[in-house]
């Protein structure tokens, strides 16, 4: 199919929302369309006026959503991976000597790969903390801390196990010990309340294209103390144009070049949609669908579920007697059900739960229905029974 020929897929059951949510709320599509229909307006970059200044409006909306004190401390990036790279490399660039860093086995490659690259260069030494019952405890973090530990990078919610980590006590402990704490909220932002006034993280990372209902290509982070992270990108900001050094004021310190206006507009509308529906209602729907799906799978012989009590709408499982990629192929092509198979960019989790072979993951959104869950579970049952014969 050529670009531009794609129609909305009929009868598609989309259960890959932990990767990218679909469908998007009509409000998001309308806002993106609106943003493309008018000349862009952003202070310092145009003489146009009268339209919405999406970066400013969205920063304020995000600050309200995450209970962040200063909207200017919300920075737009491409996605969570981009945010994590900017923060991790920026933090280490401030260091005068090699130091110790802690991460966890639950992490996505967006955390593991930047840290591994720095470890290979000798910039940091790295400890990877194990998880127990799908969670990483404060005790495990404390045990890994060394005299020169300066950085901890950890997920807020596992993209494979759907377990939300209790980051508040960890954040409090690390702050008291002057250790910079980056929390990867790619999987939690939009699913559960995040109160950055209450949780003293150094930085909180989010992406727009998952549960915040934005389009791919927009993400960001909140940073409490911008000086903790060195400037690693330079360029036009629309401000202070007479100086050849990057402004140190926020948000220009970390944002350079023209913004992704349609992406920011989608995030603006996505969060407003969540606020209208209510995060509680969205979470209840996700929990209901997830529990129902797990109940259905548990009735099926030959299915192993790796997370029977997830906090997020994510269910990882394996079908005996059939390769996961084959099962995913059959479900997609014969039943029109989209999930994700493989390692989900989280290789260390899989080493722990399935020996590194990977699994099938179903992940739900507010827009999935109970009928879709039942149909998906029935299709999986057919595949499992067929593989068992």
């Amino acid at each position, binding site marked *: 199919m050529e670009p531009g020929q794609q129609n909305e897929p009929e009868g598609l059951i989309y259960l890959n929302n932990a990767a990218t949510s679909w469908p998007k709320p009509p409000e998001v599509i309308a806002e993106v369309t609106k943003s493309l229909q008018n000349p862009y307006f952003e202070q310092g970059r145009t003489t146009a006026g009268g339209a919405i200044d999406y970066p400013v409006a969205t920063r304020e909306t995000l600050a309200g959503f995450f209970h962040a004190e200063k909207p200017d401390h919300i920075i737009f990036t491409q996605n969570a991976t981009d945010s994590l790279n900017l923060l991790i490399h920026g933090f280490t660039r401030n260091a005068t000597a090699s130091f110790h860093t802690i991460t966890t086995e639950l992490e996505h490659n967006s955390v593991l790969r930047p840290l591994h690259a720095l470890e290979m260069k000798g910039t940091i030494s790295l400890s990877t903390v194990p998880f127990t019952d799908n969670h990483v405890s404060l005790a495990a973090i404390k045990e890994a801390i060394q005299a020169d530990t300066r950085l901890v990078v950890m997920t807020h919610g596992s993209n494979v196990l759907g377990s939300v980590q209790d980051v508040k006590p960890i954040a409090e402990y690390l702050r008291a010990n002057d250790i910079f704490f980056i929390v990867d909220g790619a999987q939690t932002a939009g699913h559960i309340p995040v109160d950055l006034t209450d949780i003293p993280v150094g930085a909180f990372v989010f992406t727009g294209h998952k549960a915040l209902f934005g389009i791919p290509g927009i993400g960001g982070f909140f940073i409490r103390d911008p000086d903790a992270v060195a400037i690693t990108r330079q360029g036009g900001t629309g401000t202070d144009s007479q100086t050849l050094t990057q402004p140190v004021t926020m948000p220009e310190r970390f944002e350079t070049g023209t913004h992704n206006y349609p992406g920011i507009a989608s995030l603006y509308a996505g969060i407003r949609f969540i606020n209208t529906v209510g995060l509680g209602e969205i979470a209840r729907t996700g929990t209901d669908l997830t529990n129902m799906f797990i109940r259905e799978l548990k009735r099926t012989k030959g299915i192993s579920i790796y997370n029977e009590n997830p906090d997020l709408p994510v269910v990882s499982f394996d079908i005996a007697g059939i390769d996961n990629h084959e099962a995913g192929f059959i479900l997609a092509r014969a039943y029109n059900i989209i999930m994700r198979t493989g390692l989900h960019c989280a290789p260390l989790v899989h080493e722990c739960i399935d020996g590194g072979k990977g699994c099938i993951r179903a992940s739900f959104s507010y827009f999935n229905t109970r009928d879709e869950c039942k149909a998906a579970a029935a299709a999986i049952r057919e*595949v499992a*029974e*067929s593989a068992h014969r």
Partner: protein
Amino acid sequence: MNARQRQPQSARWQRVRIVKSVQTKVCVDGSLMKEYVLDEPLTEGFLKFLEQSGTVRYLDNLKKPYFSFEKEQFISIKGFVGDESVEVRYKNEFRDLMGDYFQLLLYYYQQGVPGREKLNGIDESLKEKIEIRLGT
């Protein structure tokens, strides 16, 4: 009734040709995946042909009858009987040797028994090259 419908089932496989390749990607393990659209749906006859040189798995209790074919070091194929598209994978180590092996399968399949014999000869030659490369 058109010409295609008048033909007996046994002869329909003779028409199988690749119309186009719709997707090509290098997978995580380095293998090359290609998805082809064919001008005719695949039949059980093609699976019987494949069975003579590798392992065919056939799951017919699904919404669509699924098959996979594995000929180690040569090729793996996934698809559905009755579908006009098929996913083909070549292992990274021998991609250069196996480049058009799926087309060879279709070509010799249409020749029936003589085609099978010719393909066996090609398989032997490819096996030798694989063994030389593996140093076995």
